[in-house]
């Protein structure tokens, strides 16, 4: 194949990809360009912003820890299991990705609410998790965990199974294989999945509003604050949206850098 042809093909692929980049980036750029310094100052000074930002960072951190803690063993099992049951479970835990978040919120109310099907033994004393910060975390875990489990499962599946077999034949226990072979090999995929899952819970809106409500400082996360200000003051909503986008962008960059470093370290070690 001639060199010119190679270049042309590469350029064609690049051009097709560029269409999507433009489509995805232009609305976000528009958000920045339409904001004046005054808008941003007004947004930063808005009384709802800082409690919401603090609450968003707190709840998404907690939900990320829960998702990774419970999701990693599940993904490892799903990646190694064979059979119909595993297939059904894998499909079932992916379902929350498909259903609209508001529906997820209603479903959570019907399950964990004051009159939900689990209310009898969850709340014998009449207390209920709804309208608390814990409910925000639950909503975030519900919508974001499936993304992590999917990414982690495929990361574990990509591991060369012979490495696992070799480690087992040398006498490593299943736990040791998991921690010292599988986890390091799957790390980049796990980190990417965790980042996706975290980003999803940062943007989570519908399930939170239904299941946790909207009270500043307690359950009002950044997306809820944006929707609330949107009702009265479009410019403040825009300014808070900018904060959300910037926070998400910076954190995703950090995660990418961390993931790349872990890959490089592995390559150096191998």
């Amino acid at each position, binding site marked *: 194949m001639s060199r010119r042809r190679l270049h042309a093909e590469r350029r064609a692929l690049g051009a097709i990809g560029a269409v999507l980049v433009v489509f995805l980036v232009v609305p976000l750029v528009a958000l920045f360009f339409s904001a004046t310094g005054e808008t941003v100052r007004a947004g930063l000074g808005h009384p709802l912003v800082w409690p919401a930002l603090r609450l968003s960072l707190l709840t998404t951190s907690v939900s990320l820890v829960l998702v990774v803690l419970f999701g990693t063993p599940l993904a490892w099992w799903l990646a190694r299991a064979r059979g119909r049951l595993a297939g059904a479970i894998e499909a079932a835990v992916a379902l929350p990705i498909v259903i609209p978040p508001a529906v997820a919120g209603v479903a959570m*109310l019907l399950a964990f*609410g*004051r*009159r939900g099907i689990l209310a009898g033994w969850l709340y014998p004393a*009449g207390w*209920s998790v*709804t*309208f608390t910060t814990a409910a925000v975390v639950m909503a975030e875990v519900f919508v974001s965990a499936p993304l992590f489990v999917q990414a982690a499962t495929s990361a574990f599946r990509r591991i060369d199974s012979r490495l696992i077999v070799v480690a087992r034949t040398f006498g490593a226990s299943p736990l040791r294989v998991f921690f010292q072979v599988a986890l390091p090999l799957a790390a980049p995929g796990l980190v990417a999945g965790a980042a996706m899952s975290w980003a999803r819970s940062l943007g989570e809106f519908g399930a939170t*509003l*239904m299941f*946790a*409500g*909207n*009270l*500043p400082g307690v*359950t009002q996360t950044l997306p809820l604050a944006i*929707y*609330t*200000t*949107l*009702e*009265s*003051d*479009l410019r403040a909503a825009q300014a808070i949206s900018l904060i959300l986008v910037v926070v998400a962008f910076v954190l995703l960059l950090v995660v990418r850098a961390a993931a790349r470093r872990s890959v490089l370290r592995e390559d150096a070690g191998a």
Partner: protein
Amino acid sequence: MRGRNRLAPCRSGASLHRGWLAAALLVLVAVGGAGCQRQGGHLAAREDKLVVFAAASLREAFTAIGDDLKRGRPGVEIVFNFAGTQELRAQLQHGAGADVFASADRRHMDELVAASEVASPTIFARNELVVVVAKDSGAAALENFADLPNASRIVIGAPEVPIGRYTSEILDRSAARFGADFRARVQAKVVSRELNVRQVLAKVSLGEAQAGFIYRTDAQQALDRVTVLPIPPEVNVIAEYPIAIVTKAAHPVLARAWVDKVLSDAGQRQLRNAGFLGPSAPASRSSP
């Protein structure tokens, strides 16, 4: 009949005879329509469709009024967009093609008038607030409005949305009658500030909250799940609903017909069935 309607907005002296061949009429319509388009822009549009933007609380009443209107004008299609008043206003400001706008709030209408998006609004209905209480919530029963501070959990609208603003006004006015700390005692039980009435109603009818403030029209549709506590008239807030024709309406004739229908006795009856109060002053009163 339909052909005449199409021509009506741009008839220029030439009268139409009934006996004309259908084909000739069609040609005329096409030519006349094209000529109109050049001169008068949107006036040439066929008036067989009406686009109504209305506050979500008007869904039941307006759907019934729409069925009524269609009976008198077969072939007319009515497209409704029911949403929060704030959302509708944003859509209108971004050029959504509506003919009529019915708002749940004077303020949003006044701002659209100031921007010349709509003209001469008329108050066509009023809606009062009520407190809804979850049925068999287990907590101590609430007998009347004065018991509200005893509720276990209360949800109200966010101060940014009309229902929240009205609730706040009611709590302010309650001080004189129910004690200076009434507002604080109620506020201490507030667990969520919802973004619209339906969310407040959902939380109460699912029993998550014991009480909430909503419009009477919304309470009317949930009587199987909630009980209604009236709010004493001297502290209650009554929301006025203005309706107006959109300045750039593509179907101004039908838009006018719609407004007249809503203000007519039949229209007012439908609104009353849905729980609305009639406009206080004579029906033709315009809001400033």
